[in-house]
């Protein structure tokens, strides 16, 4: 098998498979079609299969089953195995039961909720604490501490004033529902409306910057893919033949 599947052959096969699947996915530009769907399913399937193999090779086997064989009495190893088995059984029940009403096996589905609840609870608590200690508090501290003393250079002063104006403007804009504005005195209403106007423009500007950078990211990705395909195609005999033909045409 190893003699047959040489690295060179694997690389060439990878090139053609990659090229064909890329074209299948690009065909989505012509509308929804079977090759495009097949390409997506192949990608998802291959990705999941790889994840399963990796989880077995680098997690389940070395961190669960091999230690369990050495120390069968260790309950700390049996607990994750039990929880994992419950989750797996719930998944199997769901796959097997597809298309039929829930029966007595529904209990597996319910038991599967236990590990899921554990995972969700841990993830939520970790996430909330992390958001506080890693984002909310440091960013708030930074905003409060920064300030801008009146002796700052003009550029820093303008920057600070703009930041304050736009931040507060966004808050006013998000708060200023029509009913809320109507309740304010005329002078304050005008002021708030103007402030909210600045905030709205600030929001649009931020969204524009986000969109532009995202577009740039996708552009780079597309260029890299096209470049990769062209470069790899040029390494094949077919690519060299097309290149020679092209040279004759262009001169």
């Amino acid at each position, binding site marked *: 098998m190893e003699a047959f599947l040489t690295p060179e052959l694997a690389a060439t096969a990878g090139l053609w498979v990659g090229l064909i699947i890329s074209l299948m996915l690009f065909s989505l530009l012509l509308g929804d079609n079977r090759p495009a769907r097949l390409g997506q399913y192949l990608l998802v399937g291959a990705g999941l299969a790889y994840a399963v193999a990796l989880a077995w090779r680098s997690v389940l086997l070395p961190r669960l089953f091999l230690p369990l064989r050495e120390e069968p009495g260790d309950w700390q190893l049996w607990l994750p195995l039990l929880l994992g088995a419950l989750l797996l059984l719930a998944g199997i029940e769901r796959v097997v039961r597809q298309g039929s009403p829930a029966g007595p096996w529904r209990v597996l589905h319910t038991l599967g909720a236990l590990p899921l609840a554990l995972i969700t609870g841990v*993830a939520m608590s970790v996430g909330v604490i992390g*958001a506080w200690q890693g984002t909310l508090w440091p960013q708030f501290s930074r905003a409060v501490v920064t300030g801008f003393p009146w002796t700052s250079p003009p550029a820093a002063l303008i920057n600070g004033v703009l930041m304050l104006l736009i931040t507060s403007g966004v808050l006013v804009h998000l708060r200023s529902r029509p009913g809320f504005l109507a309740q304010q005195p005329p002078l304050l209403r005008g002021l708030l409306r103007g402030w909210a106007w600045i905030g709205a423009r600030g929001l649009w500007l931020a969204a524009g910057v986000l969109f532009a950078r995202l577009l740039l990211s996708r552009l780079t990705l597309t260029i890299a893919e096209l470049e990769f395909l062209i470069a790899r195609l040029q390494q094949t005999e077919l690519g060299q033949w097309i290149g020679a033909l092209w040279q004759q045409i262009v001169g």
Partner: protein
Amino acid sequence: MATLICPHCGMANRAGSNFCNNCGAHLRAEEPPLPPDVESAGEAHAAPEAHHPGGHDAPAADEADASAEWLAEQPWLRTGNEDDAQEHEEHDAKSSLPYPGSGRLVTGVQGLLPPLNLSSDGVTASPLAPAPSPFTGNDADAVQRLMGRTPTPAAAGMPAIPDTGAASARKALRLPWLFWLLGLVLLLPLLFRISGPVGAPRAWPGVTAAYLTVEDVARNSTVLAYWAYDPAVAGELDQVALPIMRHLINREAQIAVVSTVPGGPATARRVTAAAFYGNEPRSEGVNFSAERLQIADRMLLQNVYLPGGAAALPLVGQDIMAAVGGADNLSAPERVLPAEKPALVVLFAAQAEDVQSWLELVQPQFHADVAVIAATGAGADPMLRPYLDSGQLNGLVSGFDGGYAYADLLNRSRLPDEVQRLRTRLVTQNWGQIALLGVILLSNLAVLLGGRRES
């Protein structure tokens, strides 16, 4: 009207789909024509705010108009009761499933990019449906017209107009052509190897700081690399990761890779091998041999997949050996990760969320002892700037231009082939940006002129 119910499994699919998202059945072949009364009834249900029957009192109507106008200006706030119609549609779609919980088994698989939805009006959310469109009301109408689609009555605020052949023909015309033209603009410099004029990519703040942070690391220090990208986005991220990995190898750093993405470890060793041999991972071709990958394995202290996603990250901060314990470096078992804190952390991530997760869950446990730099995609850059300003990140390298600027700082003599390839890539990038700017400008002009003509 804008959803297609699968005749096979009953799943509601997005309008325009040819195949069911749930069972894959062909939707067009068995699509029964809707009687006109059913169609109009559906529209009345989908857009109750578009019709203003006389009879309700004027202040209430004014209040509703003002509220709708306010919401049209702030579509990102449409998450509450305003979206009742859409929620009802989602509920209908769910209740149309044959039994509870019989929806899609796997959704949101990482690496697949959801398509941009140009209008959410009347489109039922399906498991694969993208987020609601930011375009609503007149904006949606204008965008739909621009893209050659017939505006939905809900968006245009008018009674239903039966779809004609002319409208269908127009529907398939403009958007694909736009993509084809953009693709052509990108292909031209690549095919003809156009390498000038190039200009210089912008070196955003944070690149030099990242370079200096790596430069400050003592030789033979342990560097922890959090690898949060896989081959799906390697086209962009490799260009950012490669110069940093080269720099780390030059500094003789002992690199340990931890990844929460299944494809992360394989990508890491491919990039490490390429950085070591001075090549690009995606242009290696058949010369990218197994021997080279094995050498990359030996260069890395650890290269492990950490299951559990962000929830497992705090363990890395508490006890890194417990986090990666058991999953030894199979190719080089003699190389053991030291228990002390690393000298530097490098975050290779396509999404801003991965960097945020690290800064929120792991970095507080390292305190300020451990420097951290991020190498990300261009799209993540604006979200991470505040972390750079607050000092939580010591450096930030993002996107093609960030990688290019970092490689310039390395001051490595480049081979003529590499210079030619980089110049061509830069020209292509410039052409693409100019084309996109042109599309945006022309689109705005078309909307502006179209609006004037209609008024």
